[in-house]
């Protein structure tokens, strides 16, 4: 959820009404936002809608509020044709093939306008543009540019320019290595032999997207009046949307929008920005059925216009609508319905509890797990919960086991948590190793899922519910755990058999497999001293681990 800062006075002047903080708290709900904190005039807002970048600035929030207060309908955005052309080089095809651009003139850039513009640009490229990967946005002083502008490539040691906030000329390679923004975003150009660059007809560099603007053209101050704006990336859908959001906000500040001709490779042409309204529909019955409200057609029209739609035509219960081009989120009438309900006010609707006769039930394995936990508690054990994610060393190396395949994460955050556990005992030993200075004896158990690879499954894996128990004390021995196991099974009314087993994690001759009617469903034994050394454990540990699903299905079969 993007967090944005706005100035209360600035916001009120955009809305066109002076509102108190408590009135604003109410009003920002129309813009799907919540005031998180207020420090003097500075309001911190949580924007709830990650799919509506148009709501991530004071201008966008004001638009929604003033619409609801004044029933203003759709905001109009007029564009004129500028004389700026952008020529896109085909060499960019596998680098950063696309740009969409706009010109905004006659802006009065106050400090508020500037800070909102920078914030919106940052939030859009961060959240919506996947941190500049999909959408990088550049804003420039139009007066310092000599069109036409070329969007082309340079070699890492090719064109030199002074990057923003620097004083000396640098090559693209030097920028990636030395400039803070270069270092932050250089991964976006990894593996490329040439880098994208905007350059004008006087060979003045505008920027090297998605990294940095030039200090000369790419520096916008309160003295700037005319802007050139470009969004570069790959997917026209994202780029056009980002551009529309930015220029609509600037138009709301009084800027005059002008279009830019973009000449694409292969003779294709694009004229942006395109702020013509888009069409959609609303149906009274549909809106009433989904909302539970009983609106009349005129009430519905009013709520729609408050939500900044405009009504083109009404035919019975069907309304043809226009909505502004800065929105790309409307795909279905359900989206329109939500806007209507927001106009109506969520907190004005009386909640009605659904009266449905249904029977509740928890999963059987949960019930069985609870029963098993009861038994383990009765045996004096403390339940512990470990992470399901762990490391290969915890599961294999430190347990003296040869490494084998387990479910493994590709883009892990930490190697300590990059595989799914396939048994529980290593986790219990890890737990004990963190409690060496606590009172003994320590008797612990865990009930939890492990992941087993299974090619037959749709997900190539299977979750198995397991129970493991570990005891440690200065004089703990095998019989302490076998008597525990015996008590566990006899209280479930099951007779189990033990058969000798060799397992590298256990002391040879002190390990057994647990069998019920010939089915192996667990292991019991005393942990090998080398495994204890590997975890710096200083007292003997005995333990068992059981497959609860096998036990459960055995009980089920023999009911």
């Amino acid at each position: 959820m993007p967090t944005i800062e706005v100035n209360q006075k600035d916001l009120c002047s955009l809305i066109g009404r002076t509102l108190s903080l408590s009135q604003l708290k109410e009003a920002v709900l129309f813009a799907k936002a919540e005031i998180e904190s207020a420090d003097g005039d500075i309001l911190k807002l949580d924007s709830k809608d990650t799919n509506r970048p148009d709501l991530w600035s004071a201008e966008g929030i004001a638009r929604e509020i003033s619409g609801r207060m004044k029933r203003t309908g759709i905001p109009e955005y007029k564009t004129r044709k500028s004389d700026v052309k952008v020529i896109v080089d085909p060499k960019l095809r596998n680098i950063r093939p696309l740009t969409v651009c706009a010109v905004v003139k006659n802006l009065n850039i106050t400090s508020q306008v500037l800070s909102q513009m920078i914030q919106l640009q940052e939030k859009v490229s961060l959240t919506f543009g996947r941190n500049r990967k999909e959408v990088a946005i550049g804003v420039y002083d139009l007066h310092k540019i000599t069109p036409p502008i070329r969007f082309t490539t340079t070699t890492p040691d090719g064109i030199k320019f002074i990057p923003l906030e620097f004083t000396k000329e640098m090559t693209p390679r030097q920028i990636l290595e030395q400039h803070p923004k270069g270092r932050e975003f250089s991964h976006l150009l990894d593996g490329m032999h040439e880098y994208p660059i905007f350059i004008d007809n006087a060979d003045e560099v505008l920027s090297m997207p998605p990294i940095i603007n030039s200090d000369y053209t790419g520096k916008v101050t309160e003295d700037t009046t005319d802007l050139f704006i470009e969004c570069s990336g790959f997917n026209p859908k994202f780029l056009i949307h980002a551009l529309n959001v930015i220029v609509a906000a600037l138009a709301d500040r009084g800027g005059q929008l002008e279009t830019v001709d973009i000449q694409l490779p292969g003779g294709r042409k694009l004229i942006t920005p395109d702020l013509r309204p888009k069409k959609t529909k609303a149906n009274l019955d549909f809106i009433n059925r989904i909302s539970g409200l009983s609106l009349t057609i005129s009430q519905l029209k009013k709520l729609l216009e408050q939500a900044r739609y405009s009504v083109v035509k009404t035919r019975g219960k069907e309304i043809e609508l226009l909505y502004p081009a800065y929105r790309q989120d409307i795909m279905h009438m359900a989206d329109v319905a939500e806007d209507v309900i927001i106009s109506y006010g969520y907190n004005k609707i009386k909640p009605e509890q659904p009266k449905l006769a249904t029977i509740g039930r928890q999963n059987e394995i949960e019930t069985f797990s609870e029963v098993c936990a009861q038994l383990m508690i009765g045996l004096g054990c403390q339940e512990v919960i470990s992470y399901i994610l762990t490391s290969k060393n915890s599961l294999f190396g430190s347990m003296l086991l040869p490494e084998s395949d387990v479910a493994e994460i590709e883009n892990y955050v930490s190697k300590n948590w990059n595989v799914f556990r396939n048994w529980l005992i290593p986790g219990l030993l890890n737990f004990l190793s963190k409690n060496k200075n606590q009172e003994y004896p320590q008797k612990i158990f865990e009930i939890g899922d492990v992941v087993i690879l299974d090619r037959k499954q749709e997900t190539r894996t299977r979750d198995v519910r397991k129970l493991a128990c570990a005891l440690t004390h200065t004089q703990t021995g095998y019989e302490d755990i076998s008597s525990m196991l015996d008590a566990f099974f006899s209280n479930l009314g099951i007779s189990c058999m033990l058969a000798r087993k060799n397992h590298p994690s256990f002391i040879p001759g002190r390990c057994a497999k647990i069998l019920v009617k010939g089915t192996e469903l667990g292991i019991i034994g005393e942990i090998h001293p080398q495994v204890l050394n590997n975890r710096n454990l200083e007292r003997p540990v005995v333990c068992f681990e059981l497959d609860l699903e096998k036990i459960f299905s055995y009980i089920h079969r023999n009911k």
Partner: protein
Amino acid sequence: MAKTYVLTEEGRKYLEKGLPETNLVNALERPIPINELRSKVENFSIALLWAKKNGWVRLEKGILFPVKKPEKSEVLESLEKISSGHMISEEMLSVLKKRRLIQPKKETLEKKAEKLAGREITNLTPELIKTGLWKKTKLKAYNIHAVGEKIHPGKRHPYSQFLCQVRRKLVEMGFKEMPGHLIESEFWNFDALYQAQDHPSRDWTQTYSLKIPNSGSLPARKIVSQVKATHESGWKTGSTGWGYKWDPRKAAKLMPRAHTTACSARQLASGVEIPGKYFAISRCFRPDVIDATHGVEFNQTEGIVIDPSLTFKNLLGLLEQFAVEIAGAEDIRFYPDYYPFTEPSCQLSAKHPKLGWMEFAGAGIFRPELTLPLGIKEPVIAWGLGIDRLAMFKLEIRDIRNLFTSSIGMLRKQKILW
């Protein structure tokens, strides 16, 4: 003081019925096969052992021959003496002790207890209680502040206690639990929920992907083709769709479950009761940097309600019910919200008497682009509860990492939740 001895049970039996070895010799008038004798003489093996040792019999090829008959038995005489309270030789004492025919005479209960009469005593013993002699004693007053050795009872983990409570509450409210998978295909985690394959929310920084196993299989072809058509052009849902080419290979990729909504999608596709209420409490995984508010893993509680009559008003009603029943809220407030798979969407903040306002639940009506391709025509309310935060409050934990604490000291100290 010399010990006095009494006969053991076996000793008394021998005194009454004769020694087994004597009985054996008496029964052996002529050589008899050993197997025939076995059933005739009581305690045969003891009898044979001592008869041989005394040289009264001889065993040859399974036949027992009489050698001589004893005139008197020193053992028997000693037993008689002990029985009548006389002393016997040290030598015989040790023989009888070895044969476990005598034992030291124990003080009688009465005698033991009598000694304590009139005294102030600490321990109330079974003897004192049985004989009633406790009446003649004075039981010493104890230091009632004394506490014995610390006891750490076996307990469930506080977080499981909490999750069990939530599960019980939901079952009471008529919800059925859904099964789930820790590892899911992107299809169930995203595509079936109408999240576009190129949407920012599917970026690798937001979710984990799997290296092993990398790719799974897709469900029934009908569902897959309906989901594909909806993503590409809206299919029959009345939607514009996302307008891109849907890739089944991306959908088949596997990932650790990022949210419980994946369970709801599977449940809808596998068939639901109408009316139906379902829930799941499940472990989810996201590549967050771990801090006081982000653990390695977290639990989500989510569910769905299905019925032809459901509206947004019911959604608010349901959230209100959760706030009261599960969070114990005294006031609630609704906020417009956004989830990629619901429209309209709503967030509920609940005011807890002690905690104050907290974001507690989110809900929405599943988009038709989600429900129709899975074969569901009825409106479906989807809801989720912020239970980790409620758990932290109820368990008085400030750092989310302590929900999965690895300190046994902390677990031992934690009070029981009820």
